[in-house]
């Protein structure tokens, strides 16, 4: 096992014109599971490939354990990598695929056999060792790719979107399997994904990149509850956070369109910097689960309620996602074009709320919603940075 340190890691293309990764600084502790997440083209895979040695480093440093590895050949970095397409050799059996690295290193045959069988046992592949990858299901292929990585006992696992080729159900299953395997083996793991659910459920910490720049690196709960800026707030969480242009007046109330929402003192206590924004424009955010149906609320509180019109609802069984038209101006999160899911919530006055299954809604119905004002988020209107101190 080893810690990995990325120091000012930079990758530029086209003579420095295009910065794929821009000054990335992250320390990954021994045995930690770090997820690099971000939209397509944010530089996460490039960063991973630089750690693997498959991509030249323009600037900065990569340390694996106590070794400065910038110029070290991939094979000498003591890493194993799982590729998005698994990179399984189609002409080799599962056994040979798993054993490939060991055979190359000319390990004695008996030891190779023992190691491969142990890996196959862990991954429940023992019955498939003689098959070729073409005869395996997607999940089994994924496990073979994992087997190839674990059989070498590397210090670091690098995984580049290893679940993106699987269907949704299998992805959930494999997500849990990889997570539990990593936990058992305790190998430092850097995992790249564009799927924020994977990031949140698997990582000990999540590093979120945008346009090559690190936006935030934190534990999943912290990144969810204390997003560093509007981009992080909008990217993490599904459905995404509702963000609106708003203002705070002396009340202290939040002026959200024509509605006034009273902000409890505890919010100011937690965010001392917020008092500086009284009378100034800012961006207020609230997650769908913090907007409830006032009709089913245990206690009505008109000071944190507003009315909205139901435009659409999605009954998920356990709860209902309700798309509401509200009288407030949605804030646009400036991001790369690929962020469709963020942009989809940019329409003026749209809001998504998560109602409990008890609520009964109909399209075009006017409902009163209650905000959990303790869980409001505030961001600077100019920079998009979260307002805390």
């Amino acid at each position, binding site marked *: 096992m080893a810690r990995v340190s990325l120091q000012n890691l930079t990758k530029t293309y086209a003579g420095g014109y295009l910065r794929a990764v821009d000054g990335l600084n992250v320390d990954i502790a021994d045995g930690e599971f770090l997820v690099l997440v971000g939209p397509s083209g944010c530089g996460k895979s490039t960063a991973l490939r630089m750690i*693997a*040695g498959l991509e030249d480093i323009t600037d900065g440093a990569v340390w694996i354990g106590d070794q400065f590895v910038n110029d070290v050949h991939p094979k000498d970095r003591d890493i194993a990598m799982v590729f998005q*397409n698994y*990179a399984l050799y189609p002409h080799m059996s599962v056994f040979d695929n798993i054993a*490939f690295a060991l055979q*190359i290193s000319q390990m004695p045959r008996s030891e190779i056999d023992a190691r491969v069988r142990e890996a196959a046992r862990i991954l429940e592949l023992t019955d498939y060792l003689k098959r070729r990858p*073409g005869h395996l299901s997607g999940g089994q292929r994924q496990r073979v790719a994992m087997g190839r990585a674990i059989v070498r006992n590397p210090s670091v696992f690098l995984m580049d979107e290893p679940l993106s080729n699987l269907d949704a159900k299998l992805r959930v299953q494999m997500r849990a399997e990889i997570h539990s395997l990593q936990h058992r083996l305790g190998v430092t793991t850097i995992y790249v994904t564009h799927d924020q659910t994977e990031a949140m459920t698997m990582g000990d910490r999540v590093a979120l990149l945008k346009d090559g720049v690190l936006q935030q690196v934190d534990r999943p709960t912290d990144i969810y509850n204390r997003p560093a800026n509007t981009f992080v707030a909008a990217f993490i969480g599904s459905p995404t956070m509702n963000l609106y242009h708003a203002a705070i007046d002396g009340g202290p109330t939040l002026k959200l369109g024509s509605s006034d929402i009273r902000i409890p003192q505890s919010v100011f206590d937690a965010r001392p910097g917020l008092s500086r924004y009284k009378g100034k424009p800012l961006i207020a955010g609230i997650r769908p689960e913090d907007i409830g149906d006032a009709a089913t609320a245990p206690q009505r509180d008109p000071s944190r309620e507003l009315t909205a019109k139901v435009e659409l609802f999605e009954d998920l069984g356990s709860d209902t996602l309700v798309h509401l038209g509200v009288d407030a101006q949605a804030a646009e999160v400036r991001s790369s074009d690929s962020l469709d899911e963020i942009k989809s919530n940019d329409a003026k006055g749209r809001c998504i709320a998560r109602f409990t299954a008890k609520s009964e809604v109909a399209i075009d119905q006017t409902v009163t919603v209650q905000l959990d004002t303790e869980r409001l988020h505030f961001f600077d209107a100019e920079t998009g940075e979260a307002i805390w101190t």
Partner: protein
Amino acid sequence: MKPGPGPEKSAVTPAPQGAAVLPSGRAVPAGRAGTNIRRLENRAAYMFLIPWLAGLFGITIIPVTVSLYLSFTDYNVLSAPTWVGLENYEKLISGDRRYENSLWVTLKFVGYSVPLVLVFSLTVAVVLNRGLAGLAIYRSLFYVPSLIGASVGIGLLWYQVFGERGVFNDLLGLFGFEGRSWVTNPRYALSTVIALNVWTFGASMVIFLAALRQIPDSYYEAASIDGANGWQKFRRITLPLLTPVIFFNMVLLTIQSFQSFTQAFVISRGTGGPVDSTLLYTVYLYQRAFQHLEMGYASAMAWVLLIAIALFTALIFWSAKYWVFYGDK
């Protein structure tokens, strides 16, 4: 000004409901419409196929059938063929030393040419596939010989290059070696013909290049991380994944090499010499047919060649299950 023909004056009678209209504008009752349209379409298809069918029958099927008949006859073009049964085939099996020699020369030619072209084309393709600058130019340069290599002109050029006062000997002279006439020396003449054939490796190379492009980079990246060196990557990844293409090229080259004619004919000035050292099967066949006017005998030779090619091809196909890998199997 005359009034133009109005819609009521149209020559086409509107089709009743449920009926089809033929391209001619004639309406056909619904029941018969499908059959008639199909018949018309078939007729059109055959019209388009006529040039190809004429070629197939006129140049291939009829001559091949006639040659099968002629192989059982004695025929010298000037008089009518006389039926001799299996006599031509019996003569081939016993009693024609030059025929026997041509068999060995051809086997040697095929045996050297096919592996050499395969190795050469694959090697050059692998080198070119490494993202060389000016790849398109190199690819074209290497490909051109395969287009012109089998021509008479190139055969003549080759004769000059490997002649006693040829460029090849001039080159050897630069390094202090004394040359000789490669094309008139029985020891080396076949080698020059083989060399000319190998020089036309471009077509196989282009196919290999296309196949190499299909191998995902991630295979090599994974192998790099696993510690494989360049040779190990080639032997354990590239080569097995290319086996379907090697197989394809091998079949193609084997058939082409058995049929090879022009190069040996031009270099040996039609004799197959010196001392029958370049007497390929086809050259000997040509001599018997057009110099000795023994069309029956030559036809029998052609049929034996056809069967030999079929057998060799079948052998390669049979062996494929041991060494050719297909991704989905």
